[in-house]
């Protein structure tokens, strides 16, 4: 097993009186897909936002390649190489694929953009991800299907030499074929040596692409196990009850809500 690129230990986060994350420990390794599962309100999105620097953690440590780092904003996370693909994708419909992929980080001078360079880089990125469904990199995002949009959003996140990509329910709104495309893409990201965190409610997706499953239950990370050691039923029990046989919380009645 490779050394983790991103390590979180003892992370706590509260919003006012609500204690959302309790002492969360999580390690993300390059070349691995970690599925982050949990019921609604378990703290998945909050954990992602803490990693992405949107919410500062109350306590706990985040180490990047072994070095402790302090994240005060999304820019810090982006500078390290952490990219987040949010559920709503954050694409501008009226811009084309190249323009969206480079939005806010355009190449060239502010008064003379390097359109050719951006177009070529966008093509190369899409080509390395083996994306073959998009007709042209100059297609407006408004005319793309849901799966293609997701693809563009993911491609945008790997364009920046990123090391860790967090995907928030990338297949939630997609059909069967499009889900297929996106899952393949997720797998390819890991093959290229990125650490991938996949938030999903869909057990089939989780078992298909993930190497590890990390389960959050009421703000606690109750299990972080290799996918091959788990069954569907166990994961569902971990999500709903926080324990499954010997796995998860030892005594669920000690959980204070």
């Amino acid at each position: 097993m490779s050394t983790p690129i991103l390590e979180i230990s003892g992370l706590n986060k509260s919003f006012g009186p609500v204690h959302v994350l309790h002492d969360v420990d999580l390690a993300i390794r390059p070349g691995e897909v970690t599925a982050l599962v949990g019921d609604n309100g378990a703290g998945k999105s909050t954990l992602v936002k803490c990693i992405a620097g949107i919410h500062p953690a109350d306590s706990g440590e985040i180490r990047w390649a072994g070095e402790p780092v302090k994240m005060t904003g999304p820019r810090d996370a982006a500078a390290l190489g952490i990219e987040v693909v949010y559920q709503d994708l954050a694409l501008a419909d009226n811009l084309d694929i190249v323009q969206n992929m480079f939005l806010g980080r355009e190449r060239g001078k502010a008064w003379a953009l390097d359109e050719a360079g951006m177009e070529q880089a966008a093509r190369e990125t899409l080509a390395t991800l083996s994306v073959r469904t998009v007709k042209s990199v100059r297609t407006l995002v408004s005319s793309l299907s849901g799966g293609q949009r997701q693809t563009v959003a993911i491609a945008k996140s790997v364009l920046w030499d990123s090391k860790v990509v967090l995907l928030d329910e990338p297949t939630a709104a997609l059909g069967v074929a499009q889900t297929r495309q996106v899952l393949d893409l997720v797998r390819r990201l890991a093959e290229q040596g990125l650490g991938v965190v996949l938030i999903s409610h869909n057990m089939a997706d989780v078992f298909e692409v993930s190497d590890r499953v990390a389960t959050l239950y009421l703000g606690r990370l109750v299990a972080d196990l290799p996918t091959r050691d788990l069954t569907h039923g166990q994961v569902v029990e971990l999500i709903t009850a926080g324990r499954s046989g010997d796995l998860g919380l030892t005594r669920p009645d000690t959980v204070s809500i």
Partner: protein
Amino acid sequence: MTDTSPAGAPATPETPRDSAADRAVADFGIDTTARSTGEALRDYVARVRGGELGSLPALLGLVVLAVVFSLASDSFLTLGNIANLLAQGAGVTIIAMGLVFVLLLGEIDLSAGTASGVTAAVLALHLVSGGNLLGGMGTPVFVVFCVLVVVAVAVAAQLRLWAAAVPPVLALAMMLSGIPPNPWLEMLLAVCVGTAIGLLTGFLVSRIGIPSFVVTLALFLAWQGVILQLIGEGGTLGLRDETLFAVANGNLSVVGSWVLFVVAAGGYAAVVLARHYRRLRAGLVTQPTPLVAAKVGVTLLLGAVATILLTRNRSQSALIEITGVPFVVPIVLVLLVVGTYVLDRTSYGRHIYAVGGNAEAARRAGINVPRIRASVFVISASVAAIGAIVYSSKVGSVDPSAGGGTVLLYAVGAAVIGGTSLFGGKGRISNAVIGGAVLAMVANGLGLLRQPAAVVFVITGLVLLLAASVDALSRRKVSAGR
């Protein structure tokens, strides 16, 4: 892999491409952009049917109007009238060009018209009072005006729009120094005052967070009052200055007209062709070469025809000779080129489209959305000041109705008729020019047919309604097609 076809025999009867383009296509493998003219035209038709109309309805409308009016009126297609039409429509068109920036964000600037009136009044007052604005305005008004300009500078600093802080400083310097009248300085003063006004609007919208509709509605009324205060009820300030009068009424010399043609049309052709071949060599997405060539050819032809016609004598009397391209043409062209460049080729323009398309995505991409939002109002008001110079020059005076009444509504109408969306994110500077031409033609043609103002208003309203319906319907089609 297995290349069994005989060497030298291309598999498809396509125009030969150079090897770099071939390689890039092979590398990428997915870029199946139309590369032949037929495909490109079919793509375009598909896009139009899909609801992406752009300026097409306005261009068709322009042709229809030209045909109808030239059949109905003998004097419509005379050289004199066409030159007149250009000058008549220029003021509103220029204001519309500035408004496109605001409309791209899905915002509205209702105050652009009366704000332009204020700049015209300041310009005229400076001229009439011999540079003594303190005397022209009276001490209390002058002090308030200076304070507002200082506030505008502070606002620019707060918004970090440093470039926009310079014009108000210049305006202040000119007002306080009592510099003697000079037409060029006065035009600069008008634009600088426009910038200051835009900064105030932008601050109220982006920092205080009042909807732009309300802010600019309030300012529309307020600036109307300011114009009345500056000029005085029933007053008129004459622009007795050759240069100021020539802006909208003067013409280039015949030689100058041809120089303009060579610079503008030749420059356009050089830029478009150079860019096309550069992209082709790099293997990037391009339009087919015949299509690009046709575009350039048509532009050159139209430019040449217009220049030939406008350099002929169009005077009604034998005593004087009127020749040459009106000055408003190069003014509009320069604004068109600069505006288009800013929107298409700079990161600032890219960010405007992004904020108009999806403000949240722009924010997450690290774009300073409030700053962009404020800046478009600065552009709108500054460009409106240029429009004010043109329309004031056309009538040769500034009265309290300057920039009021229908000016703003026509300007918004021009942008929308040309294909700029009121919902934001979609539009180009050229839309304003085409839409402005449509409105100018309606007003001019109906005037020649001696139609009463009632008919002109109703028809202009209907044209705008038609354009807005096309916009709304095409949007529905686009979203339904997804």
